[in-house]
């Protein structure tokens, strides 16, 4: 029932994403602008982004300590990565962040979006939960660890509520979970804000129709809200995948001071690459570069999959 309601409100004229080819003088004049408009961005991008990436691909086939000669090693760096249990763990953590943190973040963001849709003080709440996004990850990380330590604020609060043996949050068994909760906390604000904007575009009368038909909250979400913001959800999913794989500071700063790395158990691939290059004694740039290429491949696969998943016809209104 709701699906038809959606279709009915579609405006008659749908715009194609790209204007149809024309051969008017206007079109010809514009064609002359094509390369001058694109070239500066393209050149900068190729020189400072694509070329270094190609160089990294080359370095990943070598053994290189940075200072000193490069030694061709073929796929040896990749073989080592595959067999290194620490890399396997880091890769697993990257995937866990991607799916578990991503899942929790999106679930929470949807929930908050629904709650905030018609709540008093929605703008204030939105502004507050967005705020962690503009603070440096290092600061957040230090703060987060401080809250959760054995005699930290969280446990003191739990004790006042009568929990005598609060969990050992920063113990090796829980540390990664605590990091993930922190990531959810920070990210939820960002995605809630974007999803809220998408929901705001949905015409109110659709919800009125729902109410008249006696739809419950879940049905409303399932048949009106979700289909109508599907394209935005897709954009968010791509944004999340890209940023999730790069997460670094929040985990790195958990080790506190002394230039130490956090325990290998909580490494992700970004941390692994950093450790190979800068914290494994003699730098292993080849291995770090290979890790980077693996990350790149992972992003590539995810983006292609996501685009396929979200490609279905966007509902317009």
């Amino acid at each position, binding site marked *: 029932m709701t699906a038809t309601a959606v279709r009915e409100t579609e405006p008659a004229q749908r*715009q194609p994403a790209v*204007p149809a080819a024309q051969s008017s003088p206007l*079109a010809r*004049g*514009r*064609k002359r*602008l*094509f390369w001058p*408009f*694109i070239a*500066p*961005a*393209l050149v*900068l*991008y190729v020189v*400072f*982004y694509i*070329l*270094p990436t190609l160089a*990294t691909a080359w370095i990943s086939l070598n053994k290189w300590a940075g200072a000193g000669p490069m030694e061709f090693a073929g796929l040896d760096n990749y073989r080592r990565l595959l067999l290194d249990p620490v890399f396997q763990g880091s890769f697993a953590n990257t995937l866990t962040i991607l799916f578990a943190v991503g899942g929790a973040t999106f679930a929470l963001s949807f929930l*908050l979006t*629904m*709650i905030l849709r018609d*709540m008093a*003080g929605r*703008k204030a709440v939105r502004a*507050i939960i967005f*705020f962690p996004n*503009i*603070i*440096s990850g*290092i*600061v957040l990380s*230090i703060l987060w660890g401080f809250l959760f330590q054995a*005699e*930290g604020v969280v446990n*003191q609060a739990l004790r006042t509520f009568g929990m005598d043996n609060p969990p050992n949050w920063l113990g090796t068994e829980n540390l990664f979970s605590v990091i993930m909760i922190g990531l959810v*906390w920070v990210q*939820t*604000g960002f995605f809630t*804000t*974007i999803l809220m*904007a*998408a929901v705001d575009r949905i015409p109110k009368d659709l919800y*009125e129709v729902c109410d008249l038909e006696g739809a*419950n*909250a879940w049905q409303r979400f399932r048949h009106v809200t979700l289909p109508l913001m599907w394209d935005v959800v897709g*954009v968010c999913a791509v944004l999340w995948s*890209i940023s999730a*794989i*790069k997460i670094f*500071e929040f985990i790195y700063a958990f080790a506190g*001071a002394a230039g130490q790395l956090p325990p290998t158990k909580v490494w992700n691939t*970004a941390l692994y*690459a950093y450790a190979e290059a800068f914290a494994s004694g003699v730098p292993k740039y080849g291995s770090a*570069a290979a890790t*980077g290429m693996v*990350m*790149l491949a992972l*992003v590539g696969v995810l983006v292609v999959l996501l685009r396929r998943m979200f490609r279905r016809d966007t509902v317009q209104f």
Partner: protein
Amino acid sequence: MAMTRKFPGPSKLLGSPFAWLFALFSVAVAVWMLLTSLKSTRAIFAEPWSLPTTPQWDNYARAWTASDFAGATLNTVILVFGTAVATIALSAPAAYALSRILTRWNSGITAFFALGLGIPSQVIILPLYVMMNELYLVDSLTGLWILYVATSMPFTVFFLTGFFGSLPKELEEAAALDGASANRTFWQIMLPLARSGIITAMILNIIQHWGETLFGLVFLQSEEKATLSLALLGFLQRMQYNGADWGGLFAGVCTVVLPVLACYIWLGRRIIEGMTLGSVK
């Protein structure tokens, strides 16, 4: 809106306290940080939960003298705004061309830019260093500025391409009929039309570079060129090693965060509205 208000379901009764609780948590964290910045190191560890008995304003004095936040803030402001402006100046025309001027290159180049979205900056940092060193652009704010602009290209072009694509083309056609050149049409008609998208792109760009650490750490060497995040990092290190002055440390963190908070309270609604307006288009 009025309709739904009449039927508050059970989900709503539970929902709004939950939302407030979530927001309250963030507020509590910020308040705690502020209070901690006024406590002595001993008190921070002995009773992290309590109010400061006598506010240690001294923490702020120590943090300010021990750091170079003033110089670093100036560097960062110049760098970050310079980056945002240059990024838009380069990517807006490119995005316009990619979305509005049809050639056989469009989809290929758009995809080529999108490819860069997936390249983590950690991946390219080593070769980039060698290259920048050859160009004598290491330890130079100009060099870092070029890098920031270059690495902003994929996202901004990708983002603005979508945005320009969604603008109505009638105005453009009308301008052409009036005899405006294509170049003028872009600058005088399309660019102002795309204002909200451009503001969004700039805000995202500024947020992204305000706290950027990795490139700064690798490509800047002199202290007088340090950005705010580098100054903060150095400051955190120093406060932890030297007698672990945690009161001073939190005071320093507050010194960095409070101006951002002030800006955010002042411009927050615009930031968020600008941002969402763009990304939802």
